[in-house]
């Protein structure tokens, strides 16, 4: 019963049977995709899905906790590169990729933990976190960009400078290697777990305190909650979620380049979250999927206007739909249904 209440709690869009009916139908459709789409198309859909954990992490951090980060791609990149190094050195070992995945997530959490300690325990002002995370991202890109050459080699793996790291092993559990349809299912299940876990988290006691911190940090602190620790923990959690996306990305494409932690990539999670509506997890989930599809379609046509379009989208949403497009639409729908009833 407790589980049920957490899952349908009030801190996200959709609580009634109508929402859950549509949701289950959607999930069922996704699970049935291999029956009517080719392996290539399922592979593309895996790509639209795999960014969702990173977006959910930013949604928790920005929408629920009131801390904005421009540097989620840094943790995405750290997890991806560390996975590449560990798994690339353990080729042939049946559990190498699993160890690599855990290592990648641990590295992302560690860096976020150290960085977050300085930022949150100093109680800096609101605007400093996004700035410093952006700087961290830019530095990481610069660092990775100059790792071309033979001296930048960890065991058998070359970091590769701007050409990136290639030949990263796919995910594997014992004898089972994940690619094609099995990789699609792996991504789909992982994303579902991330979403439902986030949803439970925001409806649990911890989530309520996060909302209180967002609304009034001082008052929350006066009520006896250690806001520094909670902000720090949310920051690390968001980094781990970004790390999951990073892992899925390198397991999907088997390569990663420093561009993945560059300025344009850093802008993307912020846009997914802002366009969907930062205060609702489900809105962010839908927006991330839709915008990834849009971005992939634009980019695959070699569209040089991609950055301008993305920038303009950001400005338009922030000026006209400050709460996000999907949240605005959902509110409008609910009002109409209420009036009809």
């Amino acid at each position: 019963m407790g589980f049920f209440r957490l899952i349908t709690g009030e801190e996200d869009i959709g609580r009634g049977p109508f929402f859950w009916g549509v949701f289950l139908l959607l999930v069922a459709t996704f699970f049935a995709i291999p029956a009517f789409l080719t392996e290539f198309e399922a592979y593309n859909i895996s790509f639209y899905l795999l960014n969702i954990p990173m977006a959910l992490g930013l949604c928790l951090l920005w929408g629920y906790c009131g801390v904005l980060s421009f540097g989620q791609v840094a943790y995405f990149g750290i997890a991806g590169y560390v996975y590449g190094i560990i798994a690339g050195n353990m080729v042939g070992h049946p559990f190498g990729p699993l160890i690599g995945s855990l290592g990648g997530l641990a590295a992302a959490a560690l860096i976020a933990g150290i960085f977050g300690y300085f930022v949150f325990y100093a109680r800096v002002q609101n605007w400093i976190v996004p700035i410093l995370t952006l700087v961290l991202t830019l530095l990481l890109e610069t660092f990775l960009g100059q790792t071309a050459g033979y001296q930048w080699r960890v065991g058998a793996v070359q970091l590769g400078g701007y050409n990136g790291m290639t030949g990263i092993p796919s995910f594997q559990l014992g004898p089972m290697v994940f690619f094609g349809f099995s990789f699609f299912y792996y991504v789909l299940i992982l994303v579902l777990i991330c979403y439902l876990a986030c949803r439970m988290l925001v409806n649990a006691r911890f989530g309520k305190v996060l909302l209180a911190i967002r609304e009034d940090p001082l008052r929350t602190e006066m009520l006896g909650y250690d806001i520094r620790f909670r902000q720090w923990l949310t920051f690390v959690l968001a980094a781990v979620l970004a790390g999951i996306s990073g892992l899925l990305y390198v397991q999907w494409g088997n390569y990663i380049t420093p561009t993945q932690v560059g300025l344009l990539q850093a802008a993307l999670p912020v846009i997914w979250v802002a366009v969907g509506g930062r205060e609702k997890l489900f809105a962010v989930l839908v927006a991330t999927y839709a915008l990834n599809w849009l971005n992939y379609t634009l980019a695959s046509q070699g569209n040089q206007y991609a950055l301008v379009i993305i920038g303009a989208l950001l400005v338009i949403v922030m000026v006209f739909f400050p709460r996000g497009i999907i949240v605005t639409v959902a509110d409008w729908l609910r009002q109409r249904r209420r009036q009809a009833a």
Partner: protein
Amino acid sequence: MDEVALITSVLYQFGTNAAFLLLAALGLIVILGMMNIINLAHGELMMLGAYVATMAFQQGAPFWLAVVLSFIVVGLFGALLERLIVRRFYGRELGALVVTWGISLILAQGTLLLLGPFMPAIPIPGGSFALGPYSFSAYWIALIVISVLVIVALWWLYNRTEIGLQARATMQNAAMARALGVDTGRIYMLTFSLGAGLAGMSGALMAPTTSIQPFMGQQFVAPAFITVVVGGATNVIAGALGSSLLLSLVKTPVGFWLGAFLGTVALLLAALVIIRLMPDGISAALQRRLDRSAGRS
């Protein structure tokens, strides 16, 4: 003689680093201090300044005129941005951050589409001279002098003019200033325009020292924002000056021995440590000390 040359060289390095940080951050810190808005399009405004200066220079304008022109053109552009977009985000810090980031993406990519990936460089004005084994660029020394002059001019503007008085009143308590008849909307527009103009001017001044391309703004993002974070927003001039001098103290030796990239990494680490000790930046710490000594006397 050699010791004199070495000391001069170290001082020169220190001065150029501080001048670079100061020029890169000045427009940003003016806007932040007054309006509590972080302008993430700052690097792109510097890029626009560099483009304006380069184009003017190619039309035959002398370099100083090109710099003045960039100040004016980018300042006007800033006023336009403030009226159209930024105005809607007063009091919403994070919203302002995101929207100015969107503007910066449009500006950088738009410049690339309109003007192409490269602009011919401006030659560095002035020559260089040698002292012992070290050589010094006259232009960078001029930049150090110019940054000092700009700080003096800002101090004069804030402390000796009617507009400056109104601006400080608005900064301290906007509602009260409005009640006393200060047109705070106009003050905000002027401030944003001034900040943008300073960014454009800095971009023009830096133009001869770097390659001019649409994404050149990115290279200023890290140093400028670190300087602002360390400086804080309590007192614009003290913050900019204090933090650029302090950070230069960190960057000069690291950059000298370990290279430019690690110099920037050292900046970030120094910033993390400094904000751990002084969360509101150097300017707040300085201001507290000033207030305390004023109270004692």
